[in-house]
C-alpha cells in the first residue's frame, strides 16, 4: 500500500489545530475532522477524482465529537481504514466507537489534569516578583504535553488503523491518567495559600474577614444552595451587594 507522503501528515496535523473551528450542534466537530482527514485521503487509488476518495470524504465530515487533542487518533485511524479498503459501514462503526473513549480520555488527561496542574504552577510562580514568569511556565508546562499528544495521536492512529484501541492501552498514557489528577489537586492545594498571601497578605484583619466571607459564601452557595449558579455569576452578585452596601 502506498501511504500518504509526510507532507500529508504535516498538513493534517496543522488542520487539526482548527478542528473545532466550526463547532456546531448538528455535526459537533465532524466538519473539522473531515477537513483534517482530507490530506491523508488524497493518496487513495484514483486520487481525488476517484470514488474511494469521494466516499471517504463523505464519511469523514459526518457527526463526530471527542477531545480536540485526541481527534488525531481518530483522523489517523479512519484514514488508515480507508487506505486498507475497510468496508464503509465498518469505518462508520469505528468512527462511532471512538467518540466516547477519546472524549473521556482527553477530559481526564487534559481538562481535569494537565490544565489545572499547569495553572496551579503558573499561579505559584506568579507570586514571584518577576512578572510574567508564571504565565510563561504555565504555557510551557501545558503545551509540551499538549503538542506531544496531538502529534502522537495522529501517528498512532495511522499506525494502528482499525486496531486503534491498542494505542489507548499505551502504558505511558495509563500511567499519566493515574497520576495527573492527584498531581493537579496537590498543585492547587500548594498554590492556594501562596496566592492568598500574595494577593491580600499585606492587609489587615478586616480584609481577611472579607476573604473568609467570600470563601464561605462560595462554599455554601455553590455546593448546597445553587450548584449551577457558577462562580462568575456569584462573583457578580456579590459585587452588586458590596457596591449597593457602599452606596447605602
Amino acid at each position, binding site marked *: 500500500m502506498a501511504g500518504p507522503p509526510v507532507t500529508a501528515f504535516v498538513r493534517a496535523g496543522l488542520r487539526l489545530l482548527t478542528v473545532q473551528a466550526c463547532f456546531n450542534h448538528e455535526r459537533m466537530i465532524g466538519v473539522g475532522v473531515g477537513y483534517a482527514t482530507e490530506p491523508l485521503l488524497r493518496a487513495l487509488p484514483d486520487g481525488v477524482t476517484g470514488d474511494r476518495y469521494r466516499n471517504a470524504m463523505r464519511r469523514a465530515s459526518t457527526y463526530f465529537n471527542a477531545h480536540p487533542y485526541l481527534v488525531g487518533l481518530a483522523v489517523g485511524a479512519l484514514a488508515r481504514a480507508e487506505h486498507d479498503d475497510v468496508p464503509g459501514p465498518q469505518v462508520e462503526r469505528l468512527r462511532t466507537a471512538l467518540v466516547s473513549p477519546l472524549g473521556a480520555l482527553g477530559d481526564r488527561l487534559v481538562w*481535569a489534569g494537565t490544565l489545572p496542574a499547569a495553572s496551579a504552577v503558573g499561579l505559584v510562580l506568579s507570586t514571584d516578583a518577576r512578572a510574567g514568569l508564571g504565565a510563561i511556565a504555565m504555557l510551557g508546562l501545558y503545551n509540551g504535553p499538549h503538542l506531544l499528544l496531538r502529534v502522537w495521536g495522529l501517528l498512532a492512529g495511522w499506525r494502528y488503523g482499525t486496531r486503534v484501541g491498542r494505542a489507548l492501552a499505551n502504558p505511558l498514557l495509563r500511567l499519566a491518567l493515574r497520576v495527573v489528577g492527584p498531581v493537579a489537586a496537590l498543585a492547587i492545594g500548594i498554590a492556594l495559600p501562596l496566592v492568598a498571601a500574595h494577593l491580600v497578605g499585606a492587609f489587615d484583619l478586616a480584609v481577611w474577614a472579607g476573604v473568609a466571607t467570600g470563601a464561605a459564601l*462560595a462554599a455554601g452557595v455553590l455546593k448546597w444552595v445553587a450548584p449551577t449558579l457558577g462562580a462568575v455569576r456569584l462573583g457578580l452578585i456579590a459585587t452588586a451587594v458590596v457596591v449597593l452596601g457602599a452606596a447605602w
Partner: protein
Amino acid sequence: MSGGVLAVLVAWGVVTGVDLVSFLQAMVARPLVAATVAGAILGDPGAGVLVGMVLELFALEVLPVGGARYPDYGPAATAASVVAVGGGVAGVALGVVVGLAVAHLGEWSVVVLRRWNTRRVRDAAPGLDAGDLHTIQRVQLAGIARDALRALVLTLGGIGLAAAARRWPPVEGRAALLLLAVLVGIALATAAMNGKRLAPGRTGFAWLTVGLTGGIAWLALR
C-alpha cells in the same frame, strides 16, 4: 492609551478569543496569560498578573468538556487589565469585576456562535454530505472568521466597559479593598472545590489537603 496600543490590545483580545475553541487551544486564553500579556502591552505587567491571578482562580472552576457552556476569559482578562493598570487596589478589584462580567458575556457569545455555526452547517449540508472539499473548507474557515468576529466584538465591548469603570468607579478606597477581598475569597473557594474533584473519590480531597499543608508550610518557612 494611544491608538497603536489600543490596536495591539484589541488584536491580543481577538487572539485569546479565537484560542478558546477555534484555533490552537494553546491556553493563551487563560486569564493568567491573557492578563499578563495585556498588562505588558499597557506598560504594567505586574497589574496584569494580579488581576490575572484572581481570574485564573475563577477559571479553575471550568472543565470545558464536550459541548459544555463556559465563560470566555481571554478577552475578559484583556479588558480587566485595562482597569487594573495604574489603578492600585481599586483598579485590581474593578478589573476583576469587569473581567467576570465580560467572561459571562463571552459565555453567551459562544452559545450564539454555535447556533450561527449550526445554521451555516445546515445550509451547507448538501455539499458536506457529498464530501465536497471546497464546501468543507469554506464552512471550516468561515467558522474561524465568525469566532474572530465574536472575539473582536467582545474585546471592544470589554475595553469600553473597562474605560467606563475607570472613569466612573462604582466603589473606591476601603470599599474597593473589601470588594477585592470578597472576590478573592470566592475565587479561592472555587479553586479548592474544583481541586477536590480532580481525582476520584476522596483521593482528590486528600491530595488537596496535602498540598494545602505544603503551601502553608512553604509560607511559614519563607
